[in-house]
């Protein structure tokens, strides 16, 4: 039995996460012996970094070398805690934070909703209330007057030491912020919000965040224009190449419009699509041109990349990126921004940034799924559903569906163009996260990928396999429609880890690709059935 106070245990690892206790998968994935062996970390690395939560490391947190180092670490944490609870430093989320800290009944009603906790076989270290309760107790004990005395009286004392902080921070990167637990909470408490606030404290006060989402993510995006590192010149060149590809594949000539002032639509893709899944921006270009939409892309800094990693860990980074994207739209005087297939980009721009993007920055923002639905249902494209006559299921990106309520547009499209469309169970606002949410899909850490595939993505994989249980043969090609770049990144890596393409013939891809694949005017199949 793992209690919250155990987080302060000085030595040892809180969980070993044994493979045999993980959520069982259907055949041929039911043999744990066939799982890829976990990466063995070099003893020198293990000496240096803290893996005492579960043996995995997302951040490579250094262990303090001296008692003085440890004292400084604790002091910096307490300084951040004070700021997290202040109106000046945390006006943006103080109310959410305070209410979630104060009103948990410790009823554990939420825990079964968590795909990581259940996917791990109920490993207590991943219980969604574990890190929340630890954090709540630290706030109550070390952030409030008479807190230390009251904590002892209540039986809720936790030692505040380097072990506590190292495990707490790693633990904040064992939650994808999918918010299924928040849905289940009868009090309205939000464990995911608390997780994000923990991440935020470490990032904004102590400068500690995963390098993939900070240095190589939001910092790179603010410096070059994109978290991929592509500057405006590079993105122009790449899109020009894709325009040529479109011609080669379809005989359709398209010149992607750039910086067209007064266009109806400013399309902002997740720039990662351009490099990793170029068929998606190609499909968008084909659809928008065929539908006669007045559209453009922007070559302003950040104006061509919808990602906003700050949403997951840092308010300053979040606001900086959101403002830059809005400035790009404002400069072009477009009628609206349309967010491409990027889940967190949707939520960051349309929801969380809504109350910072006012005045000149308030260009309306709309989901590409809605625009695509309007185009498909309007009959402006000639579509032949028989070209998509293969089993298709739909993954609901948490940010687009559970956090924005965009549920039906993508389904209307699939019902219209995919004769073998079937839902996963559960789906819609009750979906399970892909396991790559909140930045995990781009994070590898030291051995974090082993955890991401074997634990975080397990429930989703089971859901996908179950959705296709009537046609398990790899000879029958199947398609998981995932209208989110982050989710696609997770599926690519998850499928590769388990050999899903080889064993089950399941491919993943976006929504726009399915639409183009169904277009009567295009003779060659647009979907290539090649795993990448």
């Amino acid at each position: 039995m793992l209690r919250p106070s155990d987080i302060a245990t000085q030595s040892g690892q809180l969980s070993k996460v044994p493979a045999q206790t993980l959520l069982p998968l259907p055949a041929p994935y039911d043999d744990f012996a066939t799982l890829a062996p976990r990466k063995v970390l070099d003893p020198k690395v293990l000496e240096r970094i803290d893996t005492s939560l579960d043996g995995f490391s997302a951040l490579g947190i250094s262990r303090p070398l001296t008692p003085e180092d440890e004292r400084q670490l604790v002091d910096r944490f307490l300084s951040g805690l004070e700021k997290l609870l202040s109106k000046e430093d945390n006006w943006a989320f103080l109310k959410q934070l305070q209410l979630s800290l104060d009103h948990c009944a410790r009823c554990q009603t939420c825990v079964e909703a968590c795909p990581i906790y259940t996917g791990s076989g109920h490993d207590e270290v991943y219980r969604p209330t574990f890190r929340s309760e630890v954090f709540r107790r630290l706030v109550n004990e070390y952030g409030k007057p008479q807190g230390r005395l009251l904590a002892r009286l209540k039986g809720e004392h936790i030692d505040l030491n380097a072990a506590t902080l190292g495990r707490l921070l790693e633990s904040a990167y064992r939650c994808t912020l999918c918010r299924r637990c928040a849905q289940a909470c009868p009090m309205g408490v939000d464990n995911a919000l608390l997780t994000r606030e923990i991440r935020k404290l470490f990032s904004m006060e102590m400068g500690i965040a995963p390098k993939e989402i900070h240095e190589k993510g939001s910092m790179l995006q603010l410096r070059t224009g994109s978290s991929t590192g592509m500057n405006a010149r590079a993105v122009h060149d790449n899109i020009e190449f894709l325009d040529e590809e479109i011609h080669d594949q379809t005989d359709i000539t398209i010149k992607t419009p750039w910086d067209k002032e007064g266009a109806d639509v400013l399309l902002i893709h997740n720039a990662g699509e351009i490099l990793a899944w170029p068929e998606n921006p190609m499909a968008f270009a084909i659809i928008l041109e065929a539908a006669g939409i007045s559209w453009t892309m922007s070559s302003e800094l950040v104006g061509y990349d919808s990602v906003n990693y700050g949403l997951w860990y840092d308010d300053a980074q979040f606001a900086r990126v959101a403002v830059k994207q809005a400035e790009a739209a404002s400069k072009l005087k477009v009628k609206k921004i349309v967010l491409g297939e990027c889940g967190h980009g949707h939520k960051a721009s349309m929801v969380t940034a809504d109350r910072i993007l006012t005045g000149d920055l308030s260009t309306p923002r709309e989901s590409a799924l809605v625009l695509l639905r309007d185009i498909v249902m309007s009959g402006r494209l000639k579509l032949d559903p028989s070209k998509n006559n293969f089993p298709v299921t739909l993954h609901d990106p948490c940010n687009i569906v559970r956090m924005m309520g965009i549920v039906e547009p993508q389904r209307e499209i699939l019902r219209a163009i995919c004769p073998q469309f079937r839902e996963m169970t559960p789906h819609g606002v009750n979906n399970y996260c892909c396991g790559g949410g909140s930045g995990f899909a781009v994070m590898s850490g030291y051995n974090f990928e082993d955890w991401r595939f074997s634990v975080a993505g397990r429930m989703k994989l089971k859901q996908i396999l179950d959705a296709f249980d009537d046609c398990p043969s790899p000879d029958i090609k199947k398609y998981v429609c995932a209208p989110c770049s982050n989710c696609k990144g997770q599926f690519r890596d998850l499928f590769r880890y388990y050999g899903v393409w080889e064993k089950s013939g399941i491919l993943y891809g976006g929504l726009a690709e399915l639409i183009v694949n169904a277009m009567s005017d295009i003779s060659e199949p647009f979907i290539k059935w090649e795993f990448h």
Partner: protein
Amino acid sequence: MLTVVLISVAVVVFFAGIAIRLMKTLQMPAHLRWELYPIPKGPRERQRYGGSYFEESDWWTKPEDSSHKSEMVFVVREVLLLRGVWENFRPLWLWSWLLHWGLYLYVIATMLGMVEVSLPAGSNSGALHGAVVHGYRTACFLGLVGAAGLVVMRSLHPRLRPFTTRIRIFDLVLLGSIFATGVLSLKMGTNGLVSMVRDLSGFSSYFGNPPVVWRVHLILVAFFLAYFPFTHMTHAYMKYFTWHDLRWDDSPSSRNPRAAKALAANLQRKSSWAAPHIASGNAATWSEVVSDPNGNGVGKRA
């Protein structure tokens, strides 16, 4: 007399504590949106699957559905039936439901008791008196069984045990003791609640010399009233904020003219976060931090 004083002080602390908590929450800065679907708003068909206005093209040109009827229906169902617990943790539901209904009936019976003692002398209040006595008896019985069941659940159930601390048991034992002394005082032939209300209303002679168990009951009630505002049990009314004000607040700033004003004020707040990429050093406003063009900490001051 002592019990009357205690109860009176406790009632003052109870309402003052609630008022302070409400004021503190209301005075918190305008926050960023963080809604979660399904949200009980909009057309019924859309509510069925948890859809939102974002599903409409050019949603900002469409009228907002500002009706709160569905929210009210949701809240009433949750309060009366504890649907969240029923759906997500069935073994806990019965005991939790019994405890909650014990509390609800206790409050209702108290209110009815107040009505009864305020009636003019000689009024025919037999039915009302019966409702008070039976309501009070049922409240105490349900509450006692619920509290006892929850103590057992918290102590034994593997899902609850690791998170059960002294304070969780204390809260339940406190509530259980209130209900237990209520049951015992009824057994001893008092008419319980009405006498309490009469005592509090200045009719202290009504009951004559109350038994010890009744005095203990009143002292426990007084303690609970003064203790309640400082516990998580305030979720009883703070759900307005956690649900309506946060989880269900999907109102866009374009339809909320106060948002821009609140934002302007917030952006002038001082940021003192110390990480190198912010480094605002107690001097930069949020506006300066956000407008830092490269995220390199231009808000940094010497």
